[in-house]
Every structure is written in structure tokens, then in C-alpha cells.
């Protein structure tokens, strides 16, 4: 990769340790993805916040970065381990270390959004803007639905790009690689957000290309479906973009029929029932919270129900009176965190959960060793409210 003289000075440590580390990360990625040079980016969304996932070594790394590191571009932050305004019953050591991590991010200038859906709470830049999104659902959705340009970044590459304000010019950042040469042909009846999540999980698992075509998808599909699709793709693979389109004669084709649908569901649906209901992985936006509230019509959930959402979304729901309606239905809102890998849902407290999220199902099963009953939101409301 070609570096400018200024970039070479930075990598040798002339502009401080954090800058040097950031450039070392970006150069390794540049080598890996065969980039020719670095290009400016306008927005970085950084993951690696939850103490449950990055641990002491991540915390120590961030402490070091925060000594002289500062972000150069708009930077937003993924969820942490719990709701910072409503402290849970967790060991004090966990709470202290979680706040230490968030302190370092704020010190380097990252906006503490604590959200995995930055695209629903911050203004979207104009089309074709280069950004750097870690958080797999956000990267896939940004490329596929928002006309933004990013690779499927890692926690460290997004942090490095935030500090440097640049990213290696490779893969999905180059126009020609955003045109799919392979496609998934849907032959199954996909109707709700769970079906789209399962389709996404299948795509991630089978599609080896960075960009996939997606054919025979219902023309009218709501945003929750697109979000679930993006999160499913991000969870199981390395694919960073889909393009809904007509089938192209020359493209390699992979079919997603009833057999593939059922096999994918059997892998992730590991329980018939669960002790609690969780919504929000990715976190819910206002539209989805409104939809649950409409479906509930004032009924009460028969099991504890947790909704994970960004604080700004909760505040808006409160203003609109939706939050209090759902709270009366038995919903507990948790801001700043997400179902995935939160310490609030662990094996000691629960054996099984009910959710409509394929992403949550994968991480609950694989990391938390909790079994999952996968149902779509309408079925959840029908089965668990009266």
C-alpha cells in the first residue's frame, strides 16, 4: 500500500502512540485487502464497548489509546453492557470497568450513543459518502439500504479510522466490487421479520463474496425486515452488502427454498418456549416499538418482556406515550445495551428465551449457551399476551 510522507511519519510514532497504532492497524488491513492507498471517511461507528466482550485486555488497550488519541471525524458508539441510568444487579467490578471503558471512548471524542442502530438516531450523510462501520448489521444496512459506502469493518479498524479519518481503499469501497457476481434466489415464502432474518443468516453462511445479489424478494417490505436481513447476514458471514434486483443471466446462483429455510430455522430455533421475551438485536427503533404497541392494544404480556433500544428512541417513545402504554403491558425498557452478549441475560438466570431476532438466537445459543424459541413478533404477541 502506498503511504504519503505524513502517513509514514505517523506510523513511526511522530504524531503520538495512538496515531501510530491506528496506522499499524490500517496498514495491516490494507495489505490484507490489497488496498493501494488510504482515503478519507466522514463517519466511524465503533464497536467493542461492552466489558462482557472486550474484557480487561480491551480495557487496557483503550486506556492506552486514550492517552493521546483523538477522533478526527464524527464517531458513534455501539451498546455497552447495561442501562447506565438504571443500574442492574451486577458485580461492582463489572460496573466500574464498564464505566471506565465508556470514559476512555468519551475522552477521545466519540459520541456516547450506545447504539447498534446509528442509522436510526443520527443524520444520514448524502449518498456515496465513505464511512467506516463496525457492528455488522450497520455495515450491511449502510451499504445495502442507505447508499453509504463501507467495508464490513472490525471494532479496531473503525476505531483506527476514527482516529486517522481514513480507511484503506479496497473491496466494497471500490465501485466495481459493489456489483454482485453471485446471487441468492429466494424461492421461499418470506413474510415477516423472522423470515428475513433467517434468509440473512443463510446468505451470510453460504455467500463467500462481499456483495450478493438478492432476487425474488417481495417488492413491498418494511424496514424491520431489512434490518433483520442485514443483521442475519452480518451474524453468520463475511458478506457486507446485498442488492435486491432482477436475476442476471451471468451470475452464479444459490437457491433459498423451503428446504434451506427449514434447515436454517432448525439450527437456530433450539427451544419450543422460553422464560422471558426479548426484543432488540439490533436495538429497536421507534417504528418497531410502535408496531409492538399497536399489536398489544393494551393487553398484558404473560411473560417478562425486555425491549432493548437506544436512549433517544426510548425518550421519543415516552414523549409519544408509547413507552408508558407498553410499560403497563409489562415491558421493561433497557437503553444503552442490546440482547446480544449483555450480562443481563445469562445461563445462571435463564435457560431459554423467546425472541424474533436471529442475531440474538445465534449469540444466545453459541456464547451464552441459552436455548431460544424463535417466533415472529405477531406470533409472540398472540402466544404471550392476554
Amino acid at each position, binding site marked *: 500500500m502506498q503511504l504519503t510522507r505524513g502517513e509514514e511519519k505517523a506510523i513511526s510514532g511522530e504524531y503520538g502512540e495512538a496515531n501510530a497504532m491506528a496506522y499499524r492497524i490500517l496498514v495491516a*488491513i490494507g495489505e*490484507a*485487502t490489497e488496498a493501494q492507498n488510504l482515503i478519507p471517511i466522514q463517519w466511524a461507528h465503533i464497536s467493542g464497548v461492552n466489558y462482557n466482550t472486550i474484557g480487561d*485486555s480491551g480495557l*487496557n488497550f483503550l486506556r492506552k489509546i486514550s492517552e493521546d488519541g483523538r477522533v478526527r471525524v464524527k464517531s458513534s458508539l455501539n451498546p455497552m453492557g447495561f442501562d447506565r441510568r438504571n443500574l442492574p444487579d451486577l458485580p461492582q467490578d463489572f460496573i466500574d470497568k464498564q464505566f471506565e471503558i465508556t470514559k476512555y471512548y468519551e475522552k477521545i471524542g466519540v459520541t456516547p450513543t450506545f447504539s447498534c442502530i446509528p442509522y436510526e438516531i443520527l443524520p444520514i450523510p448524502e449518498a456515496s459518502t465513505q464511512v467506516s462501520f463496525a457492528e*455488522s448489521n450497520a455495515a450491511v444496512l449502510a451499504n445495502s439500504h442507505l447508499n453509504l459506502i463501507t467495508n464490513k469493518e472490525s471494532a479496531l479498524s473503525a476505531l483506527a479510522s476514527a482516529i486517522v479519518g481514513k480507511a484503506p481503499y479496497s473491496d466494497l469501497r471500490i465501485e466495481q466490487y459493489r456489483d454482485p457476481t453471485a446471487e441468492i434466489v429466494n424461492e421461499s415464502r418470506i413474510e415477516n421479520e423472522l423470515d428475513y432474518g433467517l434468509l440473512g443468516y443463510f446468505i451470510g453462511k453460504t455467500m463467500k463474496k462481499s456483495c450478493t445479489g438478492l432476487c425474488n424478494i417481495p417488492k413491498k417490505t418494511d424496514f424491520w425486515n431489512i434490518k433483520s436481513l442485514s443483521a442475519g447476514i452480518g451474524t453468520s458471514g463475511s458478506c457486507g452488502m446485498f442488492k435486491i434486483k432482477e436475476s442476471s443471466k451471468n451470475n452464479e446462483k444459490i437457491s433459498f427454498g423451503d428446504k434451506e429455510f427449514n434447515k436454517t430455522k432448525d439450527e437456530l430455533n433450539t427451544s419450543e418456549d422460553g422464560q422471558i421475551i426479548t426484543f432488540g438485536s439490533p436495538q429497536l427503533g421507534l417504528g418497531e416499538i410502535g408496531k409492538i404497541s399497536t399489536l398489544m392494544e393494551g393487553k398484558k404480556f404473560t411473560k417478562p418482556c425486555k425491549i432493548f433500544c437506544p436512549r433517544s428512541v426510548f425518550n421519543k417513545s415516552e414523549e409519544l406515550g408509547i413507552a408508558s402504554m407498553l410499560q403497563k403491558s409489562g415491558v421493561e425498557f433497557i437503553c444503552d445495551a442490546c440482547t446480544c452478549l449483555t450480562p443481563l441475560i445469562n445461563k445462571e438466570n435463564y435457560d431459554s428465551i423467546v425472541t424474533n431476532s436471529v442475531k440474538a438466537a445465534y449469540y444466545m445459543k453459541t456464547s451464552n449457551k441459552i436455548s431460544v424459541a424463535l417466533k415472529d413478533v405477531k406470533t409472540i404477541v398472540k402466544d404471550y399476551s392476554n
Partner: protein
Amino acid sequence: MRIKCKKIVGGITSGKLLFSDQPINFLAMLNLKTGQITDTNHKLNNLTLKNNILVFPNAIGSSVGAYTIFSLKNNNTAPNGIICTNSVDITTASGCAISNIPLVCIEKNNYEILKNHYGERGTHSKEVILDAENENISFD
């Protein structure tokens, strides 16, 4: 015997090869204390990355997997080196960069040579030398 590789993160190391033809979600599948894969659906389930040279296609899933690689390094449970056989992904590249774990990728024909020599899966008794600086892998 010696085969060529491409340097992504420099360094020289040795270890036994641990082959996987399946990708790895580092965040979800690793026991940080032991370096073991803990996913019953993965062919390397219960095998450890510790002290081995991991040969695998690429990482998948969570962007936080980069920190998992760093945690493995700090816990002394990391692989000594990593060889990617597909394309080197951003998670593995950035995780190895801050952990100083030598990382290379190999072309398909060289992967076939390694695979034919060692078999496709699991660990093998003889050590190989991974020289990322000089871009080669040598073995008996």
C-alpha cells in the same frame, strides 16, 4: 519443503498446524481462558488454538472478534500464527496487528500442498516454521 505466502502481519514463529475448512466467529466461539473452540456445530469443537498455527479460510460475524484475538494473546491462549486460505478479513488482520501475531495468506495451490501433506482437519504432530517476514512456510 517450503511454500510461499503473503505477509499481512510480520514475525517469525513455529507450531503445529491446526486446520479448519470452516470460518470462525471469534467472539462467539472461543473460550478465552483455554483458547478452545466451543461451538458444537464447528469441526474444531474442543480443540485449542493455543500454541498452534491456525489454518482457516477467514473470520465471520462479529466485528468485536478483533478484541477476542487480542484477549487470547493477553491470556497466553492465542495461536502462534495464523494462515488464511481464503481472503484475509478485516477482523483477523486488525486483531493480529495489535497482538503481534504473524499473519499470512496462501494461494489455493499452496493450500492444496499443505492439505495433501497434513490432511484437512485437526492438529498434526510435526511443527512448521511460519516466516511472515520472508513470506514462506517451511515443513518436513
